[in-house]
């Protein structure tokens, strides 16, 4: 409108897309090249971050985008892990088939766990997913002892079509490929009409119904889709750990992923990633801290630093409470604020 920008201009939108495109390529190259640069230890940490993202992103879609609160994610990971174990160890198929079967069974379980969501919401829904969690863990325990014995299901080194993928680097790339596929699916869904319907059902389901959105079908399909993705991630997680044991799938594990999406930012893929980095790296940082400054192993007079696990829990709790109170939009909100600030400093007063 004003004469402020008289210079010949490529539109701000075009510049924005170009910047985004370049950033995406750079990020992709960085991710793919990471294990070539990192030590095996840090490659493993990077693998855990990417896997945590692949698990948190569908949960974030379910909770952040669709408004369905769930503590059932550890249960879906267990469903995936045990399905994978059965397909690989008992039926003698390889990872791709295990992923497909885990996806189908995860979707079915998600559909069933989602049924109460047609009637319940908020804390009540959370309670019903909690019940589902204990039910699944109980079933996993029985399944484990009947099929694999007390030690759990021990996964063989990952091989697909005769190619050995069990090295830390290969595992990283396999999980990275899966995480990228998860991100792509969620991104495409959320930017489609179906994604708009999901958001509408979250915001006002009656208004959505008045717009012709089949509310029940939409809710259940989100449960099925996200649970399928989490179950598939469960197979990869079991491969990474090397085993599926029911003791692993605790409520604490479920809460970790809830923490990731709260700290990262609800309803955002970037948020899921930032949260995954943060929550995975906090224990690593704690370990380093205690190794460097804490007393020796077994010592009793080192204060909190001699109890890294307790310290970790306290720090987790403080971080989550801090984010809920101070930054409810999560890390992604912090990054956006920084971006806006940088834009203001470098670009003057750009107007949209």
């Amino acid at each position: 409108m004003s004469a402020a920008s008289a210079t010949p201009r490529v539109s701000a939108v075009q510049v924005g897309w170009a910047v985004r495109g370049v950033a995406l390529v750079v990020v992709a190259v960085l991710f793919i090249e990471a294990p070539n640069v990192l030590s095996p230890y840090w490659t493993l940490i990077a693998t855990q971050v990417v896997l945590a993202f692949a698990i948190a992103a569908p949960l974030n879609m379910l909770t952040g985008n669709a408004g369905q609160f769930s503590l059932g994610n550890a249960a879906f990971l267990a469903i995936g892990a045990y399905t994978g174990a059965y397909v690989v160890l008992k039926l003698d198929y390889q990872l791709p088939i295990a992923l497909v079967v885990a996806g189908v069974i995860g979707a079915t379980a998600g559909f069933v766990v989602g049924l109460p969501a047609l009637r319940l919401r908020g804390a009540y829904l959370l309670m019903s997913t909690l019940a589902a969690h204990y039910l699944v863990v109980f079933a996993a325990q029985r399944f484990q002892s009947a099929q694999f014995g007390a030690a759990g299901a021990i996964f063989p080194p990952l091989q697909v079509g005769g190619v050995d993928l069990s090295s830390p680097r290969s595992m990283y790339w396999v999980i990275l490929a899966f995480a990228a596929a998860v991100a792509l699916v969620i991104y495409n869904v959320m930017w489609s009409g179906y994604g708009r319907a999901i958001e509408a059902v979250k915001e006002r389901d009656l208004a959505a119904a008045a717009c012709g959105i089949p509310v029940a079908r939409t809710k259940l399909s989100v449960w099925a889709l996200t649970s399928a993705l989490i179950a598939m991630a469960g197979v990869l997680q079991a491969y990474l750990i090397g085993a599926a044991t029911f003791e692993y799938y605790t409520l604490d594990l479920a809460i970790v992923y809830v923490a990731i999406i709260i700290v990262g930012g609800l309803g955002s893929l970037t948020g899921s990633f930032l949260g995954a980095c943060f929550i995975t790296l906090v224990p690593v940082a704690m370990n380093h801290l205690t190794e460097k400054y804490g007393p020796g192993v077994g010592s009793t007079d080192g204060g909190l630093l001699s109890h890294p696990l307790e310290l970790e829990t306290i720090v987790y709790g403080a971080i989550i409470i801090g984010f809920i109170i101070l930054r409810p939009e999560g890390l992604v909100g912090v990054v956006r604020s920084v971006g806006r600030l940088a834009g203001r400093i470098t670009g003057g007063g750009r107007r949209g």
Partner: protein
Amino acid sequence: MGEPLLEVKGIDVAYAGGAHALREAGIDISAGERVGIIGANGAGKTTIARTITCMTRSYRAVVRSGSVHYDGRDITRWPAHRALRNGIVTIPEGRGIIANMTVEDNLRLVLVALPRNRRGSLTEAWSMYPVLGERRRSMAGLLSGGEQQMLAVARALLARPRLIVADELSLGLAPKIVKDLLAGLSLRAAGEGTAVLLIEQAAVLSLQFVDRAYVLDHGRVVSTGTSDELRHGGDMTARYLGIEDLAGTEELL
């Protein structure tokens, strides 16, 4: 007149909480007709809107007896999205817009549910209400009450309806804005042969825009007639609506 577009026969609807909202109510609407339903609070107006748009289940209400026929088909137990896909579109009480979505996304929402041949284009909405076009990227919750209602009307029209059920369109709006909205709606509906069912507590206002109306009281249809008959007939209508003389209340607007 031929077969009515919509025929509600002896409908009985009760809510899960026990409220018996409709008692053997019956109405009919022909294609392209403008019909009103008027009545006091709690008369069952909104319930009849929900019944026609197949939304009763969403509100935990049950159709106990009676039927709703649309275009010759029994739609009593249809899900809401099927009704919309077949041309029954609602402008719900309280506007039913999604505050945290942009104006454009609110409009696109209705397109998701529709088959391609029933989808209108957004340019129609922008040309009908330019203010919506100017604010297409604004969150719908930031619009004024009148603009929100425009959005609700535009969204309904986007679904190329054969029957629009407008529930308490005037709620919380200045009379001038309501008149403009109704005039625009009537014009578009007349142009496309769309039937309009106007459900209003504001009886006087409603009767200015409809060809005929039903008066609802305690879930029953207690009176029916053309707008003129209801306004000047001096029958029990006014008593049911708590207004002394409908003919003399024009100035209320």
